[in-house]
């Protein structure tokens, strides 16, 4: 018996649970969609205008159904794929627990993103998908390639997500709300609004891997196949166009932004499509195809209007179904043959007939052949292009021809021709999900109605009023049909000229490498790394530098502040009364202790002197009537002294090292700068008693009403309770940090 067998069964449960979760979520979304959805609006921090505004409307339904539906299918595939993958990589089956939680979290974040109607909420879910994708793309963390790819995806999509946040803040600054429905009503076509919406669009385009921020997606193919089939077809890249669909009325305030979308989309279609033609790795072909396909969606959003928005929604739906099936095909083929390059594969239709048919349907869907759902996506695309004049019409046909050619090359190369690598049998669960998606695509090709309904409802949300995008078969020579026919014809021609095509595509790929943005990314990363190394050397080389890094700039900033503010009356010396004498005595004790701590060369005596200093100050607090502060000072001082003594008593004895003269003098200078700064600040603060309308008065008055006798405690637990909550959270996070640094993440 294999000793790990019960173990692997146990880890298989996680995958099955994830699949079941996705299936239940899908069913819930389906019910929610059919019963008309619903909305939650809960102002959780009203003072900052933050609301939990979630609506399961048409747009939410479309993307939530995609995230859960494709999720169910891909998760099922993953339950068969992941154990094999882990075995190939010689990793324990238990590593599955590093996989499934992130997949489920990703699905949850996608559903949340789909329903969010608040810009801050959009940002939060947007980043949540980025974080989950980081761990999923970098799942094979023993591979340098995978780690680099994960970091690149996180940086490109995460840094550009900051643009979304900046856009949101700009809009809040102008209209005083983060809520999209309110923004749509209030927004005027001003430059500020245009800049804000352009920033949001940048974040969305980076997420959808559009030129020139597309290069993270091909690298992200280092991820295991289920991740690609989910994130890089239906989820992560779809998050970008989802945001565009959600904020489209804002983008539509500016023609420049919309035209920018069309240009970026067309560039992505052409560049992605051409490079896809030249790739040899199966997943690379599909990754570049994704760049190109989301280019279509971006173009449709740029065109806007009923045709454009309806087309965009149906396009996302169709593409997600087809592309995840194709990614899973690539994974299944690689599992069966051990080969992932198209030039080493061929003739697999005899070994894998079911897979050949199912993925053939998926490829036909992407190529927009009739009797598949894909036909309608192109019909709407051509219809939208038709309204924009002949130039866009020609480009649309070229784009569709490119798609036809590269996906034709992919499928024909895999399943026809001479058999180059023999295929081993693979488990049914690696094929069934693809068949399911193929059946959905064919059903959609015959009964397009429910799919068109879903897309129309989503587009209505984007459009702001009801619209209906209902494609159908029209057996006549209308423009859409002519364009489709010419696209197929051109695609066949492209397929028959492989050599010309390959050289063109290779030239594009080379040009992209030479002046491409990937080079800029690498350069920027290296530069930032060097800068960080320098700062590190300056700041945290040893304890001394890290203290100086805080104290010296602090003192210098205070000096600067005093230089530019008028200081008349800021430094007054008050009278000394009889009651002040105990305080003065305590302060003199503190000064003596401070001098001892600074001058004593020993180890334990300075610590004890510091303790004396602290207790003296605590006594001062008690004397001037601040018992709460005094209590905290006493207990903190006690535990700090104790820990110091405990650590120092265990350190090995070392002979006192002679410091260089320059270093000794540098310490003195740093101490004087910091000390003078603190001295000046405290004197100035004490010279100006707090104004009469201090918040303290209100707090004291209210404390009684809040059932408190001790004002400080009431402030901590009630009036400023939110601060306390955040502070203890920071404390918990700091402990996690300590555990991570000292004990490699073990909590104990």
């Amino acid at each position: 018996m294999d000793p790990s067998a019960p173990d692997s069964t146990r880890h298989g449960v996680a995958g099955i649970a994830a699949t079941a979760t996705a299936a239940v979520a899908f069913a819930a979304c389906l019910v929610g969609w059919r019963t008309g959805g619903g909305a939650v609006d809960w102002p959780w921090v009203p003072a900052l205008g933050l609301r939990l505004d979630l609506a399961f409307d048409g747009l939410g339904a479309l993307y939530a159904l995609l995230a859960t539906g494709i999720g169910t299918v891909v998760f099922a595939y993953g339950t068969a794929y992941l154990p094999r993958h882990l075995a190939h990589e010689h990793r324990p089956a238990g590593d599955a627990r590093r996989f499934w939680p992130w997949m489920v979290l990703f699905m949850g974040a996608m559903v949340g993103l789909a329903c969010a109607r608040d810009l801050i909420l959009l940002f939060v879910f947007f980043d949540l998908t980025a974080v989950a994708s980081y761990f999923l793309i970098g799942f094979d963390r023993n591979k340098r390639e995978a780690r680099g790819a994960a970091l690149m995806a996180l940086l490109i999509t995460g840094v550009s997500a900051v643009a979304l946040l900046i856009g949101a803040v700009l809009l809040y600054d102008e209209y005083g709300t983060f809520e999209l429905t309110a923004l749509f009503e209030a927004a005027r076509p001003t430059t500020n609004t245009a800049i804000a919406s352009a920033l949001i669009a940048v974040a969305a385009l980076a997420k959808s891997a559009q030129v020139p921020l597309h290069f993270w997606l091909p690298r992200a193919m280092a991820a295991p196949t289920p991740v690609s089939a989910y994130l890089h077809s239906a989820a992560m890249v779809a998050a970008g166009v989802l945001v565009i669909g959600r904020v489209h009325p804002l983008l539509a305030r500016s023609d420049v932004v919309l035209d920018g979308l069309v240009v970026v989309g067309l560039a992505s279609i052409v560049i992605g499509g051409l490079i896809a033609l030249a790739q040899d790795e199966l997943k690379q072909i599909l990754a570049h195809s994704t760049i190109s396909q989301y280019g279509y969606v971006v173009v449709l959003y740029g065109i806007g209007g009923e045709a454009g928005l309806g087309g965009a929604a149906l396009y996302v739906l169709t593409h997600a179904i087809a592309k995840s099936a194709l990614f899973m095909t690539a994974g299944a083929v690689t599992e069966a043959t051990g080969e992932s390059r198209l030039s080493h594969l061929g003739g697999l239709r005899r070994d894998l007939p079911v897979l050949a048919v199912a993925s053939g349907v998926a490829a036909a869907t992407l190529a927009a052949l009739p009797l598949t759902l894909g036909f309608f996506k192109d019909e709407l695309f051509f219809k939208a292009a038709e309204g924009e004049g002949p130039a866009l019409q020609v480009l649309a046909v070229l784009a569709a021809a490119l798609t036809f050619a590269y996906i034709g090359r992919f499928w024909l190369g895999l399943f026809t021709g001479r058999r180059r690598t023999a295929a081993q049998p693979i488990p049914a669960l690696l094929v069934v999900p693809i068949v399911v998606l193929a059946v959905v695509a064919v059903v959609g090709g015959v009964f397009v109605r429910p799919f068109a309904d879903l897309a129309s409802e989503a587009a209505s949300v984007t459009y702001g009023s009801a619209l209906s995008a209902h494609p159908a078969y029209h057996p006549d020579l209308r423009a859409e049909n002519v364009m489709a026919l010419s696209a197929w014809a051109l695609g066949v021609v492209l397929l028959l000229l492989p050599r010309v095509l390959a050289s063109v595509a290779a030239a594009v790929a080379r040009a992209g490498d030479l002046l491409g943005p990937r080079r800029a990314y690498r350069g920027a990363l290296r530069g930032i790394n060097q800068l960080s190394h320098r700062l590190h050397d300056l700041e945290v080389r040893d304890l001394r530098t890290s203290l100086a890094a805080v104290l010296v700039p602090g003192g210098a900033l205070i000096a600067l502040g005093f230089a530019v503010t008028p200081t008349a009356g800021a430094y007054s010396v008050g009278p000394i009364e009889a009651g002040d004498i105990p305080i003065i005595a305590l302060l003199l004790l503190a000064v003596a202790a401070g001098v001892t701590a600074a001058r004593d060369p020993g180890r334990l005596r300075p610590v004890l002197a510091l303790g004396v200093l602290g207790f003296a100050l605590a006594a001062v607090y008690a004397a001037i009537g601040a018992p709460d502060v005094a209590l905290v000072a006493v207990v903190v001082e006690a535990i700090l002294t104790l820990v110091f003594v405990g650590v120092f008593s265990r350190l090995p004895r070392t002979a006192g090292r002679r410091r260089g003269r320059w270093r000794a003098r540098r310490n003195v200078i740093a101490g004087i700068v910091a000390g003078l700064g603190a001295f000046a600040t405290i004197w100035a603060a004490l010279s100006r008693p707090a104004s009469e309308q201090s918040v303290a008065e209100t707090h004291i008055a209210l404390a009684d009403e809040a059932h408190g006798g001790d004002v400080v405690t009431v402030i901590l637990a009630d009036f400023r309770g939110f601060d306390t909550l955040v502070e203890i959270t920071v404390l918990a996070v700091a402990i996690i940090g300590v555990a991570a640094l000292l004990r490699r993440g073990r909590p104990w």
Partner: protein
Amino acid sequence: MSVVLEIIAPRLLGPAVMVAAAIIVKGYADVGDGFSAGVIVATAIALRYVVLGADRTERGLPILRRAPIFIAAGLLLSLAVASIGPLRGQPPLTHVPAAGEHVVHLGTLELITAVAFDLGVFLLVTASLVVLVHNLARLTERARS
């Protein structure tokens, strides 16, 4: 370490916990809060670490092993109290009973959610400091061996 300390250190935890309990119970009406109470208990535990070493301390007080759980529990308790307000349609950290309403007293203890919040802070602060001291002790011991 001196014999006197070795005898006193383990016996200080009881009084420290008593003081902490008194501070929390009286906290809302008198000086002191969950933070001070937590540091007092942690000081007593830290004294044991310093005097007896990490191994003997943790063998004598197996509950210390659960410190990470107490951190989470304290945070969750505070969060739970904070979310009572939103659940009742009020801003977070609105305490029950509200201002001006009648409060049940058990001796000096006021039954008010603010005290529960303070208890969460106490748990988190105590357990965090224990984890820190534990890590420091293990670190210095590793450095010595």
